[in-house]
């Protein structure tokens, strides 16, 4: 066979709607009401304030290590704002704003970082999964959920999140490939913040974008300005429309910067420069969206101040609730660790529960019949 060039009908689109100065591209501006736009801003601001408050709580030792999400509000909210309550939300771990928007009580989210499984329990009324720590592994759950939607004939879409580092994992490939092959209605949102802890994007991939990886799966890939909440919203909305029409998955590569350390346990000074951070600081999503809203006459300092005061009050209440719950007998019950692993507690776990109860001086609280150990001294055949 001679050398030939095969032609493919693939392109990778980029999308940006509001620039750093808050100027909007009128042709691309989504039709959102003033109320919706202000709501979006409020959710983003709420998430930002929570992130800042969490940092204080962590420094004071009132919660444990957590991954900060400052700067990720546009990606999270722009995408989650485009789905319905009955759709599915399959998160990674930097989507604080999505959890808040989906109705997870803040005290519950705080409980997770304070070391309680109860913080991972999704609220009633939404199809949400909890935080997923092993990166990219959740993408397969999203694809499976989407495949089940097709099998059951339900027109619900699945929104799932991952970082640029996750794109190196096998489950990233398998997740998108399964969704593509089975035409599953899944929107894969890459929060491309250009860092996997210390490793910059070029140490994860040789490609210029994450979006172009979509080409390999035969699905649309869009490079989105991840600091522009309207661009993320429009790209997600379009992906959802395709998915609901039965056109399968989309990969959204939303570019931002990790404005914070990876987690509260990380020190980025070791691996990146202040100059770089400063360059990105002016592209930051809240500043930009605020400028846009100000230009539209929807937001001013006074309004923002009022929002912040209200939000801070809500956060204060939630922290109080979390700390009350964290001290409650029910949540502090160590014996509960055995109760939720299986639908029915198997005998060996009853035995171990009894063992822990005994070591706590509470053996009488756990039924002795659950412990099949024989009384060795009393019944031994020999040596007894």
């Amino acid at each position, binding site marked *: 066979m001679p050398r030939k060039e095969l032609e493919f009908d693939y392109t990778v689109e980029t999308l940006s709607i509001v620039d750093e100065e808050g100027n909007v591209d009128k042709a691309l501006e989504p039709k959102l009401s003033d109320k919706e736009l202000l709501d979006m801003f409020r959710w983003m601001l709420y998430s930002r304030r929570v992130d800042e408050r969490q940092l204080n709580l962590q420094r004071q030792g009132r919660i444990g290590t957590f991954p900060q999400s400052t700067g990720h509000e546009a990606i999270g909210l722009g995408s989650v704002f485009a789905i319905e309550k009955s759709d599915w939300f399959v998160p990674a771990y930097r989507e604080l704003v999505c959890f808040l928007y989906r109705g997870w009580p803040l005290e519950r989210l705080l409980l997770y970082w304070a070391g309680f499984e109860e913080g991972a329990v999704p609220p009633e009324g939404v199809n949400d999964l909890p935080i997923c720590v092993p990166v990219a592994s959740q993408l397969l759950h999203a694809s*499976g959920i989407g495949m089940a939607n097709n099998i059951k004939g339900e027109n619900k879409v699945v929104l799932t999140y991952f970082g640029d580092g996750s794109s190196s994992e096998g489950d990233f490939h398998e997740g998108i490939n399964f969704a593509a092959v089975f035409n599953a209605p899944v929107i894969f949102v890459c929060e491309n913040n250009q860092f996997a802890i210390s490793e910059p994007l070029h140490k994860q991939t040789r490609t210029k974008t994450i979006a172009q990886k979509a080409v390999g799966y035969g699905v649309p890939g869009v490079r989105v300005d991840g600091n522009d909440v309207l661009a993320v919203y429009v790209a997600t909305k379009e992906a959802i429309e395709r998915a609901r029409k039965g056109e399968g998955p989309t990969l959204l590569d939303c570019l931002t910067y990790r404005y914070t350390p990876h987690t509260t346990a990380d020190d980025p000074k070791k691996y990146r420069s202040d100059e770089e951070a400063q360059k990105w600081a002016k592209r930051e999503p809240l500043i930009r969206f605020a400028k846009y809203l100000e230009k539209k006459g929807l937001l001013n300092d006074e309004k923002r101040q009022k929002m912040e005061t209200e939000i801070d009050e809500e956060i204060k209440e939630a922290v109080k609730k979390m700390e009350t719950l964290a001290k409650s007998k029910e949540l502090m019950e160590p014996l509960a660790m055995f109760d939720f692993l299986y639908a029915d507690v198997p005998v060996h776990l009853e035995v171990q529960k009894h063992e822990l109860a005994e070591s706590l001086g509470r053996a009488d609280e756990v039924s002795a019949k659950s412990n099949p150990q024989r009384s060795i001294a009393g019944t031994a055949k020999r040596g007894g």
Partner: protein
Amino acid sequence: MAEMNMAKSINLALFEAMEKDSRVVVLGQDVGVDEGVFRITEGLHAKFGDKRVFDTPLAESGIVGTSIGMAINGLLPVAEIQFAGFDYYAYQQLESHAARFRNRTRGRVTVPMVMRAPSGAGIRALEHHSESREAIYCHTPGLKVVMPSGPRNARALMHAAINDPDPVIYYEPKALYRLFKEEVPDEIEVMPIGKAQVVRPGSDITIISYGATMRPCLEAAELLMEEDGVKAEVIDLLSLMPLDTETFVNSVAKTGRAVVVHEGPRACGVAAEVVSRINENVFLYLEAPVIRLTGYDVPVPYFSKEKFYIPDTDKVVEACRKTLRF
């Protein structure tokens, strides 16, 4: 009653479960039109169609990971991994997710799925096609692990696995697929997971095993009776997690001697757990140390020498005699 082999009885169980409950779906590499490389999914695609019996991309993590998603979204997936030697790709999904969702969401999100895979040696297969690694999954809190030893219990265990509200690893000793036939009743039997069976009563020694090594254990018991007049009690564990401690502990309390037999490697294997539980519960009833007769702690040799690795009837007889002589 119909007589059938184990390949057929597992197939029958899948067919019955799919007919009974439209939430049951079967997926994996080659399970559709090709009906599985061991023909375990024979007739399913023809009967239930693409939506319920489907070929997947060749990716074990993908097969198990999407099964988890489907289970969360209301289906009851039965995922086939073509050979157990390839399910390590899926281990992350099993350990981090299938086994944990219920616990970490305090029961809100659950994963009722089955991962089934042909396991074990003895069919002169290629490298990586003969492993017995069930212990890995027993060591993974949140999973259940079962292994049938014949046509009748294979069908009953498959029904139990599909009905179970938690993820079940169902390992099929592939050497038994077409080795022998057994009467299987017309009505559906469901065997509770977590119960062992005394398959041959006896009073002198307890032989504890499961899966493919049940046959040599039963043959050994017969030989011991004929040649030595020894009455061996034989226990089929069937469920490896949870493990039915009571059944084997009661037996050992009676016999005072035990041999634990399996094909998988010895170190940290199922037998190690069984022996520990014997020690914890009935140590002073023992007349002799409990022997573990298992695969050696080496990879299964290529098939020219695999028979030296697998515990066979002679080895079981020898281990029992050693225990009885102590």
